């Protein structure tokens, strides 16, 4: 019997990025959104950002690259003055926003350029593929998103895209890939819709359809690899190592805790989707501390030193994945949020998300390699 996978044991001392929630508000109401409280504008006080920066600025001195990702809600709904005030305490970091683009105009583009912000958009393809992205009146957001894209192009600001696919199937993949190459993004991440947070839509799909989607997407990228394609390139990176007999070297040795700071300073680790909940049965709000009372470095160190509560349960689940799943070397174990929201516990193992986004992804790439 071979030794078990050796990556993803323990937690790194210095993460590579943090996610910040400048406001809970989103001006859209997408059908698959996982965020609670997105209809209300609960803004992050500057004191929270200052507390986070107190740790992050020290972390940033210790690593080549550190990112602060302003996520949401819709981060631009916080307004440029408040977002600037939240960013002001940080030193030596890259700033990123993940935005729905509907508020992006010339003024925001100037803001992005002035603050050297890397921009990621959320867009699911042409109008009929983006139909789940709507406002609170149910009106499609597509044309407002495109106006934002046009503003970015006018200003020469490069942008990445995260695309949610709710109905993965082979014939969709090439259409989507061609759309995004023509849109002008330089990077694309593809998320199969997840059942998590307040989104309880079913995410089970026929295996062959999902594998076919990934296989076709692989073919589309290889035929025209002008944009970075997260899923396919990561898969090929892993499979290259597997071909060399080095599959166990791909995962980081220790896990990045991905600290996520909610608007009120509460911190969740490992799964940003756990932020913002108050009363999960048996687990409470998932928060592991609050930066207004405990330094972020202390929160991360305490969890790394002595995992307790849901984190200990999650680590048990990771070890169960390690012991049982052939794909562990690729993914490092099911995400905490997917375990909880799909299966009700953190020590459960294989989720629909694992199947759709990790297992069938690798299998689809291998299918393409075998000409299937």
């Amino acid at each position, binding site marked *: 019997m071979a030794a078990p996978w050796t990556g993803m044991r323990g937690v790194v001392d210095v993460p590579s990025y943090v996610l910040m929630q400048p406001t809970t508000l989103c001006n859209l109401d997408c059908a698959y959104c996982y965020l609670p409280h997105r209809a209300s504008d609960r803004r992050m006080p500057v004191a929270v950002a200052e507390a986070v920066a107190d740790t992050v600025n020290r972390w940033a001195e210790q690593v080549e690259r550190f990112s602060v990702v302003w996520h949401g809600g819709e981060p631009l709904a916080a307004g440029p003055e408040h977002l600037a005030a939240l960013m002001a305490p940080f030193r030596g970091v890259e700033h990123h926003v993940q935005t729905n683009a509907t508020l992006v105009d010339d003024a925001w583009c100037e803001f992005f350029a002035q603050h050297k912000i890397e921009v990621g958009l959320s867009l699911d393809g042409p109008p009929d593929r983006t139909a789940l992205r709507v406002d609170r009146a149910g009106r499609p957001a597509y044309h407002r998103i495109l106006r934002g894209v046009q503003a970015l192009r006018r200003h020469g600001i490069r942008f990445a895209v995260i695309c949610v696919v709710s109905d993965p199937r082979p014939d969709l993949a090439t259409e989507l890939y061609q759309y995004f190459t023509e849109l002008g993004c330089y990077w694309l991440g593809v998320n199969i819709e997840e059942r998590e947070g307040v989104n309880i839509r079913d995410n089970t799909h026929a295996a062959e359809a999902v594998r076919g989607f990934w296989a076709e997407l692989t073919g589309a990228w290889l035929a025209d690899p002008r944009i970075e394609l997260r899923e396919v390139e990561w898969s090929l990176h892993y499979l290259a190592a597997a071909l060399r007999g080095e599959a166990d070297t791909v995962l980081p040795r220790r896990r990045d805790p991905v600290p996520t700071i909610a608007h009120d300073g509460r911190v969740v680790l490992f799964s940003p989707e756990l932020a913002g909940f108050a009363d999960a049965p048996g687990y409470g709000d998932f928060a592991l501390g609050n930066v207004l009372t405990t330094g972020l470095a202390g929160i991360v160190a305490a969890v790394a030193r002595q995992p307790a509560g849901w984190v200990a349960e999650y680590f048990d689940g990771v070890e169960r994945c390690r012991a049982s799943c052939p794909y562990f*070397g690729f993914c490092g174990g099911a995400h905490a949020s997917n375990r909880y929201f799909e299966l009700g516990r953190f020590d459960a193992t294989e989720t629909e998300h694992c199947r759709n986004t990790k297992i069938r992804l690798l299998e689809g790439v*291998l299918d393409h390699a075998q000409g299937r």
Partner: protein
Amino acid sequence: MRKDAEPSVTGPRPASAGAGREGPADPLAERVRAAAGGLGRMVSRAEAVQRERADAAGRRGAPRWTDVFTTQFTEFSNRPR
């Protein structure tokens, strides 16, 4: 077992060595071996594309990150490289 479930992922499995790590009845490793010819060509193509991309970034003075794949692969891994 569901009809559409991948045979390699449902039900109890041996502690896996994973692809490239010899282990008993490791379905992923077997899949990689079976696909090695086509896979090798795809990997070569991808690595050439990534080298070109890094060179282009260098020519325009952009940071040339050499840690392309060191961050975890999650849905929030949206850092430009």
